[in-house]
């Protein structure tokens, strides 16, 4: 039983589907819904994902049937048929996915039947049911991938050895998706793997079509992308592993070892790659040895965001930056069954710290937890206050940050106060960027 949400940090299934398609070159969404849905979702995705932009045929270019009340009364199938046909006439794409909004699902338009009339078109036209009420952006990502895996990915009995697909990073919802995928690809290629990130640099529709040849799917998330991985397993016979989102040396080492083990890669190779990467990484990180210790740059921290970032960032700042994270709030709609795996990620911190972990979707809750974990000063002369503290969250945390005087780094959706192009937080390079950004806040006034 779901509840209302105070300022959601995700769009709906349709929004997630649109963002996912935004990440596939020359994939054209055709929205079967009222006139507002596409526009509304674009405004959220564009701004929330560090100004992702509409892309090739997104934003206000999104083809949309724009059904109105009359269509709802009489059914919108005729309008949909007309819209698909006209889109194929005008818009130059390599694949067309017809997505539904809530109203046309409620009136029972037969999407699959209408779309099947376009089977003969020389490019694929696929239906995906994505009404808003089916779930959040993450659901939309799973729904689009499932449709592609089911109807578009080429079946290949013969798997390419040492080839992997990366799942679990949801475009736009992970604001740094493109940079993150690039870094993950770079690292795994060093292990000798052939890496298909499905989206992002170097990938296109063909990558997705050929993803059936992978011998392993790596889901870099404990809860997102798993439905897609299961679909691949079921239809294309590709096993999968789940890892967390690797951020920092500790996280990325564990990640590389886990992948290497799953693919039986020679441990010597893995260890050599890790050693190389760490040498470079520490060569950079070492620069902070002076300043960190000269002016005491250790900080308390509060981390707020999605299920991929919060565990990874919290461990990174605890075990590598030597900070003191006291509170971690995971804001996704997390199923009760999924909570234990996420909680496990907060166990055994090398620092020995045990931050309080909360699952809560509401923007106003973060402040309540803060007062819970650290009581306010009641005019005591000597008071061990909660500070200095850095808040790592989304732009929703800005009021809280201002109120407490905490510097804020926005890393999770929505991020409207930054421009994000190829910036990354994953892997070794991403952790260096995260370090730059965090400490950058602290020296900004110097």
């Amino acid at each position, binding site marked *: 039983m*779901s*509840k*209302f*949400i105070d*300022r*959601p940090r*995700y*769009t709906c299934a349709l*929004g997630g589907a649109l963002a996912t398609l935004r990440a596939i070159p020359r994939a054209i969404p055709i*929205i079967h819904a009222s*006139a*507002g*849905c*596409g*526009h*509304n*979702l674009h*405004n*959220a995705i*564009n701004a929330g994902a560090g100004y992702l932009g*509409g*892309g090739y*045929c997104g*934003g*206000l*270019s*999104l*083809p*949309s049937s*724009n059904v*109105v*009340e*009359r*269509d709802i009364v009489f059914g919108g199938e005729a309008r949909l048929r*007309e*819209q698909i046909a*006209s*889109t194929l*006439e*005008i*818009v*130059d*794409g390599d694949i067309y996915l017809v997505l539904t*909004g*809530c*109203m046309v699902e*409620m*009136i029972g338009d037969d999407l699959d039947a209408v779309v099947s009339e376009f089977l003969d078109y020389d490019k694929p036209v696929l239906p995906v049911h994505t009404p*808003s*009420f*089916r*779930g959040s952006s993450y659901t939309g990502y799973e729904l689009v991938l499932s449709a592609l895996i089911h109807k578009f990915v080429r079946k290949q009995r013969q798997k390419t050895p040492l080839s992997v697909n990366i799942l679990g990073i949801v475009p736009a919802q992970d604001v740094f998706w493109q940079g993150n995928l690039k870094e993950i690809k770079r690292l795994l290629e060093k292990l000798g793997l052939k890496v298909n990130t499905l989206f992002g640099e170097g990938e296109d529709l063909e990558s997705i079509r050929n993803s059936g040849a992978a011998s392993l799917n790596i889901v870099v998330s404990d809860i997102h992308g798993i439905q897609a991985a299961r679909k691949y397993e079921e239809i294309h016979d590709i096993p999968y592993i789940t890892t967390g989102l690797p951020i920092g040396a500790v996280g990325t080492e564990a990640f590389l070892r886990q992948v290497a083990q799953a693919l039986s890669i020679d441990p010597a190779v893995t260890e050599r790659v890790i050693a190389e990467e760490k040498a470079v990484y520490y060569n950079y990180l070492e620069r902070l040895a002076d300043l960190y210790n000269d002016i005491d740059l250790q900080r308390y921290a509060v981390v707020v965001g999605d299920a991929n970032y919060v565990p990874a960032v919290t461990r990174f700042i605890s075990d590598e930056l030597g900070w003191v994270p006291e509170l971690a709030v995971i804001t996704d709609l997390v199923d009760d069954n999924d909570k234990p795996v996420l909680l496990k990620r907060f166990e055994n911190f090398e620092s020995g710290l045990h931050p309080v972990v909360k699952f809560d979707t509401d923007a*106003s809750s973060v402040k309540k937890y803060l007062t819970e974990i650290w009581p306010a000063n009641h005019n005591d002369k000597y008071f061990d206050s909660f500070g200095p503290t850095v808040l790592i969250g989304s*732009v*929703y945390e*800005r*009021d809280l940050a201002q109120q407490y005087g905490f510097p804020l780094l926005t890393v999770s959706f*929505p991020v*409207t*106060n930054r421009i994000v192009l190829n910036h990354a937080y994953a892997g070794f390079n991403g952790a260096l960027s995260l370090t730059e950004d965090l400490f950058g806040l602290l020296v900004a006034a110097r």
Partner: protein
Amino acid sequence: MNYLEAKSAPAREDRLKANIAFGGTLRDIKGCLKKGCFGSEGCLNLAGRRFSQTQGCQFTLSLAILNTLRNAVIIMHAPIGCGICSISNVGVNKTFKQLRDPQSEGIIWLSTNLDEADVISGGEKKLREAVLYADKEFRPETIIIANGCVPSLIGDDIDSILADLQTQTAASLVPIHCEGFKTKVMATAYDAVYHGILKNYVKKPERREYIAEPDLEKIKEKYRISRHVNVLNVGSMSRADELELQRLLNALGLTVTFIPCYAEPEDFEYSLESSLNVSICGTHDDYFVEHIKAKYGIPFLIDTIPIGRKNTDRWILKIAEHFGLEKEAQRLIQEENRELDKSLEPFRQKLAGKTAFIAGGEVRILATAEILQDLGIKVLGFKAHHFDQFVEPIFDSLEDLDDAIVDVATNQPFEQANILKRLKPDLLVTHVGGNNIAAKQGVPILPLFGPSYNYLGYSGVFEVARRLNRVARNGQFNKKLAENVPLPFKQEWYEKDPFTYIKQQDAV
């Protein structure tokens, strides 16, 4: 006009016979207006498209006003996606509100997050929980409940639920019925919002009555009201725009309150202590001012928008006429024009002879054309979100534009792409939104409005000139994009008439 007994405002295609799909020249459209093609018997009222692109709904446009109201929490009664566009506003909203009141908070909203189970059994329970939570947690003066398409299809009786809840909340509850599928004309949003405001915010203020009130005080109060006007601002206006209009009206001895955007609930009550409601845009305000006139007897003025010199002159004169201040107004206009005219000279020298295309709201684009003409720029064409009677007063301010292309289209960048490819303007002045397509056509773009820039009044003319000149000086960003990034439309599309996909009448 009285629609207030009804649950919600009627759609504009019914009430005003507004049109969203037309292609031709300005001459054609003037002819159509005369012939009544846009009227109830008209051929154009229900026109649509065989191919369409997403255009926005009245829910999203309603939020543009609702998000500005101070001391309010908004509940989006809908699945999780509706209204999430507020994300694009969340960062700047507080700053803009604080320009009016330094204590203001940013936007707070809740989504009732209707899911599959609610679609079957109704959203009432979640709506109740959300309202009670908002009241207890944020203690706002008002809680605005905006509903999307789903509750309306499930048949949630929102008004009754809220009437019942009102007895349990400290905040007053304001339903706004703005479900997207009810209308093709996004501007219906203004009526939907005003409908809620009229029913819930507008009431005579409770003033403390003195037992013995000295006559002098009464006379003063009467005088104050007799010299006070409300100017109805729009979400796209900036604080600088407001200050400019205020400056001009103060110069005539009038005082001003701005509603509805960035207003506080009690501003609507005090707005009744006023002697004239002044619209700056008929498209935005007719529903509100007509109702206020019918119910409270306050006259109104809907004429032109004060963008461009002639339009500003005319706007000031019309207001002055109401107060018998024509002479003062003439003097003001003369003085303002003299100064402004001189200041525009350097820009005229640089911009004269260039060509432009303007896209956005009907009233605003035509008025902006006046500024461009003032600078010697030739306006090649327009794209208007929709079209109705409210543009007529602006025609007077324009010179010789009968051959300009007019595309009536809410967004629909594909049509604009085709038109721009033919017209090849030097400059584009456009509404926010679809500009990633226009940018890839390589044209330098000046936004048609912006909440941190001045466009209105005399200072607005200067600001537009100044910025347009800057934009025209270096268009490399878009030019390079055009050289390197493809547009999504097939070659065949550019060979077709840009209005090929407009169908005259939707088959019912």
